[in-house]
């Protein structure tokens, strides 16, 4: 899956890919104060290519949990399951339904997206990307967007969560790269000096089929140097 980190203060964005084997679960957000966690499980393509350079991976399953509320949401490409303690509610991506309870709302928009809000301070959007059923290579997959993280604490971590806090980066020495349309540059971030490539990724929140191009600086090697530690530090055993 690819990650886009938008930095409004700089009117710019950084992106990176995480390449791991299908089935791997990655910790995207963990906030010890609010008790919110978001994990994502990776899927591959229908025709699984083992070569990590060429294979594409996506999120096929997401787990959103609030320890304080004893509440969990499992989002797959087919269903959305809500647990309140031991009580289970199951919805399908064919439903249009708003689920509300104290401090929480979940809006499922048929075949499009799901918006989860915890109070006024946290809003996530999960987008369902549907592909043609007979498409030989690709599966349906999920996109995950953080729309509002104001309510998350300063201790929030995870592949996405670590970027909720302000951070700085500098880009210099823009020069032609191996692809003439994508210049390389030097980025200094978190005390690391990295070679990055100018590219673009898609934001599908508003237009699920075409998306909107977001220009970004691409960090190679699974975000190494940009993310705290290495990407394997974010592998967790289970969705919850």
């Amino acid at each position, binding site marked *: 899956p690819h990650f886009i980190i938008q930095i409004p203060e700089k009117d710019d964005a950084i992106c990176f890919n995480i390449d791991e084997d299908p089935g791997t679960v990655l910790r995207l957000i963990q906030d010890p104060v609010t008790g919110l966690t978001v994990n994502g499980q990776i899927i591959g393509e229908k025709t699984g290519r083992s070569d990590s350079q060429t294979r594409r991976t996506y999120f096929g399953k997401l787990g959103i949990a609030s320890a304080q509320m004893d509440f969990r949401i499992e989002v797959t490409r087919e269903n959305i*399951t*809500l647990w*309140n303690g031991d*009580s*289970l*509610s*199951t*919805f*399908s991506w*064919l*439903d*249009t*339904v*708003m*689920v*509300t*309870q104290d401090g*929480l709302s979940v809006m499922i928009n*048929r075949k499009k997206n799901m918006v989860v809000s915890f109070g006024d301070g946290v809003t996530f959007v999960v987008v369902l990307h549907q592909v043609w059923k007979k498409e030989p290579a690709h599966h349906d997959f999920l996109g995950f967007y953080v729309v509002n993280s104001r309510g998350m604490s300063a201790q929030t971590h995870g592949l996405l969560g670590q970027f909720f806090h302000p951070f700085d980066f500098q880009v210099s020495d823009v020069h032609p790269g191996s692809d003439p349309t994508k210049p390389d540059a030097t980025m200094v971030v978190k005390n690391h000096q990295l070679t990055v490539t100018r590219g673009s990724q898609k934001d599908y929140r508003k237009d699920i089929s075409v998306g909107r191009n977001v220009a970004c600086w691409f960090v190679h090697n699974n975000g190494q140097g940009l993310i705290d530690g290495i990407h394997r530090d974010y592998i967790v055993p289970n969705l919850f």
Partner: protein
Amino acid sequence: SLLLGAVDGIEVYSTKVNCKVTSRFAHNVVTTRAVNHANTAKEVSFDVELPKTAFITNFTLTIDGVTYPGKVKEKEVAKKQYEKAVSQGKTAGLVKASGRKLEKFTVSVNVAAGSKVTFELTYEELLKRHKGKYEMYLKVQPKQLVKHFEITVDIFEPQGISTLDAEASFITNDLLGSALTKSFSGKKGHVSFKPSLNQQRSCPTCTDSLLKGDFIITYDVNRESPANVQIVNGYFVHFFAPQGLPVVPKSVVFVIDVSGSMHGRKMEQTKDALLKILEDVKQDDYLNFILFSGDVTTWKDSLVPATPENIQEASKFVMDIQDRGMTNINDALLRGISMLNKAREEHTVPERSTSIIIMLTDGDANVGESRPEKIQENVRNAIGGKFPLYNLGFGNNLNYNFLENMALENHGLARRIYEDSDANLQLQGFYEEVANPLLTGVEVEYPQNAILDLTQNSYQHFYDGSEIVVAGRLADEDMNSFKAAVKGHGAINDLTFTEEVDMKEMEKALQERDYIFGDYIERLWAYLTIEQLLDKRKNAQGEEKENLTAQALELSLKYHFVTPLTSMVVTKPEDNENQTAIANKPGEGTRRQGEVPGTVKDPESQPLLCVFSVDGD
């Protein structure tokens, strides 16, 4: 079935039951053809048992190629003809109660020597979903072997059919089983039962038929989405049955009649059922028992959680129940209602839970407040619309109308428990229907000013395995899209389901509607509206009752439904005399006298005419 007045000379050469179901709305046509080979006129009776929930829509007689169609008239108008005959000491009736689920339609006619007669009865009903399935019930009982005997059922469900089954109580061997075929694919389902003459014989050399019993078709539809809206010709129907929701915990009070009349088998069956129900009560639920005879006793002073210990204690309590004394319905119900109200006020039951009161009685109140109207008023005031009351009437010797009215005005329903060997199963079955509420306070909403003539759109509960059906008319047939929202309170959350219908997509999806019959949504809407108006009318008074009656009557006449407000009149030549017959649709009234089927001769009427009338009461 066709009952032959005289077997000799009469040949029943064809009996066909043709059912077409479109979106749960069933249109059934029963056709029987016979010929009188004898040298003299013979009387032939045509019997059909149809569901009590069905409305007859037509009956025709065809004699020697001449068809005499039925006409639906206002009941009072039709009755005048009938009463004239009755005043001459003659009685007649075409429909009478027949068992738990059915009523029997019977017509007798004289068939001249060498003549052919065709009977055709049409009735319609909306199949209701219980425990996850729609059920169509047909009674099969031909009185002789029939050369062409056939039941065909075609089902068209735009949501797609998920399961389809057909079972007949009389299919006991492979030979007869081969006469039954059932299949479904996508939106269409088909069931056919076509036994040959040999397959119908009760034994290889017998001339009597083994086709005798129940023929039941069950099916369900795909539920990829919790709701489905269909729109045809400006009428819409909205089916709502979400799945995968947790069960809302419930506080249930059982109010049990233990008066002397419950002695013996009734008491044993009640105890058996309660013990079984206790096994099914969920741990999140709260419960209590209130027993009444001349006085009222309770198991516990207040509702208790259904912990294993309490269930064990409750079972012991149930086993020790003894019958005694008279019947004090008023105080028992008020005690139960007060208990539920108090638990809610004092927050001793979960905030997100629902209350239900279930009364079982076999007789009329005869101690304390015994006036039915006053009991109804007391109960209505005490409940205040907050939760439903379900009344189960055990046996025949009770004022069922009273129980039904009381239940209906408190958002519940009444059910008869028949004094058969399986009365305990009937009780358990009822409990299972209401044991799993998934939503409470369900409101179905549509854009303001977009719809007209909406059927009931608010329900206190949605139970697992059931379905909410709302129908109406679009104010503007040319609108491009249509949006419906269903709001309800779940076990943990509040939910709002939204269904948006694109009219063009709808048109495409229902292109195959001609497969069955085109105006089914309009008829479904009319059926549902009449049914609900009749229910409301049961508890209405004065001008409101008059208005409800007028509306239901207008629709019954417009859509040719034989309801309690209308009668169907059929004329035919008969013995150079006018004949009159009437049938009252037998409701669940108080100690109703069964109508007597037959024909009545009315010498004052025009010659060569026989008038049959079918109505529902």
